[in-house]
């Protein structure tokens, strides 16, 4: 590591990143650039307000309300806002529907774009070099690792989030779930199913 000055041994940053982050937060706070309570608000938002339960509610409603489903497929941002889910990294949402003929999956090969308001922050594997590199060139092999087998004659459609559109997979509703309530259906919907690396099972 380069030294700015040989007079101060402490110009080497601490190897413990937690201390180094704390130092930056303190420095910014002392100058009035940051209110730590606003940082708390961000952490709280991602730990308790946004996450895959939001997306699951959207999916379950789409399964039980055909008009909502149509609105979701026409303009997913507006439809999700109806349920109270909107905001950064979800300004332009697009829902892509899994059907008998098409299986959708979502990746961001260039960084880690992900629909925050409906799915929260991405899991580590979504940001991994392995997923980002492989999802577009061998999606079926990736899906197999997730335990999902797609028949050879069914299209696998990969969405690479290169712009500010964010994608949400609308998974297929499992069979024999006619008697389940919207809430019970939402319980079945997994995060991976909404990224497209899983399917919903009853």
């Amino acid at each position, binding site marked *: 590591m380069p030294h700015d000055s040989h007079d*101060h041994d*402490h110009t080497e*940053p*601490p190897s413990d*990143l*937690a*201390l*180094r*982050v*704390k*130092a*930056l*937060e*303190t*420095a*910014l706070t*002392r*100058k*009035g*650039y940051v*209110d730590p*309570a*606003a*940082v*708390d*608000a*961000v952490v709280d938002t*991602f*730990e308790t307000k946004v996450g895959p339960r939001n997306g699951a509610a959207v999916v379950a409603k789409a399964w039980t309300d055909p008009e909502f489903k149509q609105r979701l497929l026409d303009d997913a941002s507006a439809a999700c806002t109806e349920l109270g889910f*909107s*905001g*950064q990294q979800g*300004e*332009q949402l697009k829902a892509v529907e899994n059907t008998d003929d098409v299986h959708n999956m979502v990746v961001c*090969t*260039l960084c880690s774009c992900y629909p925050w*308001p409906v799915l929260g*922050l991405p899991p*580590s*594997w979504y940001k*991994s*070099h*392995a997923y*980002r*590199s492989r*999802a*577009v*060139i061998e999606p079926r092999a*990736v899906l197999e690792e997730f335990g999902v087998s797609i028949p*050879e004659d069914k*299209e*696998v*459609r*990969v969405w*690479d*989030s*290169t*712009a*500010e*559109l964010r994608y949400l997979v609308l998974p297929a509703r499992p069979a024999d779930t006619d008697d389940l309530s919207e809430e019970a259906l939402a319980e079945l919907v997994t995060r991976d199913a909404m990224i497209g690396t899983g399917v919903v099972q009853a």
Partner: protein
Amino acid sequence: MTNSVHDMGGMHGFGPIPREDNEPVFHEPWEGRVLGLMMTTGAHLKGNIDNTRSQSEMLPPATYLSLAYYERWFLRLERVCKEKGLVSADDLATLWAGQDIAEDLVAEPIAPDDMRRMFANGRSYNRQLNTSALFTVGETVCAKNMNPKGHTRLPRYARGKIGVVTAEHGGQIFPDTNATFSGEGPERLYTVRFQATDLWGPNANPKDTVFIDLWEPYLEAADTAS
């Protein structure tokens, strides 16, 4: 930087997907602080999402690959805060040594409620264009073979490849210019469908497709007669 290691689509050798059961939102509390600091300092740093991405891409490839995700974000944030004069190296060194620094308020921080509102409202990337679309839905297009040294969102694996426009999204901020603060330069955005076999050759499943969102300057008319 365009042709750097962040542009991973189609690369080999990264192994199986590393999955973790019951993964927490943040593995360590400092990760959440980094994200929170990035979001709360936004107005003071006067950055933009394209410049932020570009900064990460300018890391040497070996460094990019070796850093953990939030570590990469943090080192970028710390560097930018120093570059823009929000914090000084001396102040950081003092804090690293376990001492405190005096309060010297020179700015107004964003309040927690405003932070929540900013998150909930999001941003608009759409911009009105006075030009007509060069391409129409259903048209066959070619992603340009281009290798600019600056930031771009045209992945290498699509360059020179033929696809079909499936949607048009109007004018949107153009990353290539926005990343260098040389203007939003809005350009029309399209979604383009590529056949997997056109991207990867005969070993790909002929049924499979990849959809990529591409701005108009990334595209040119394809010679459909060829």
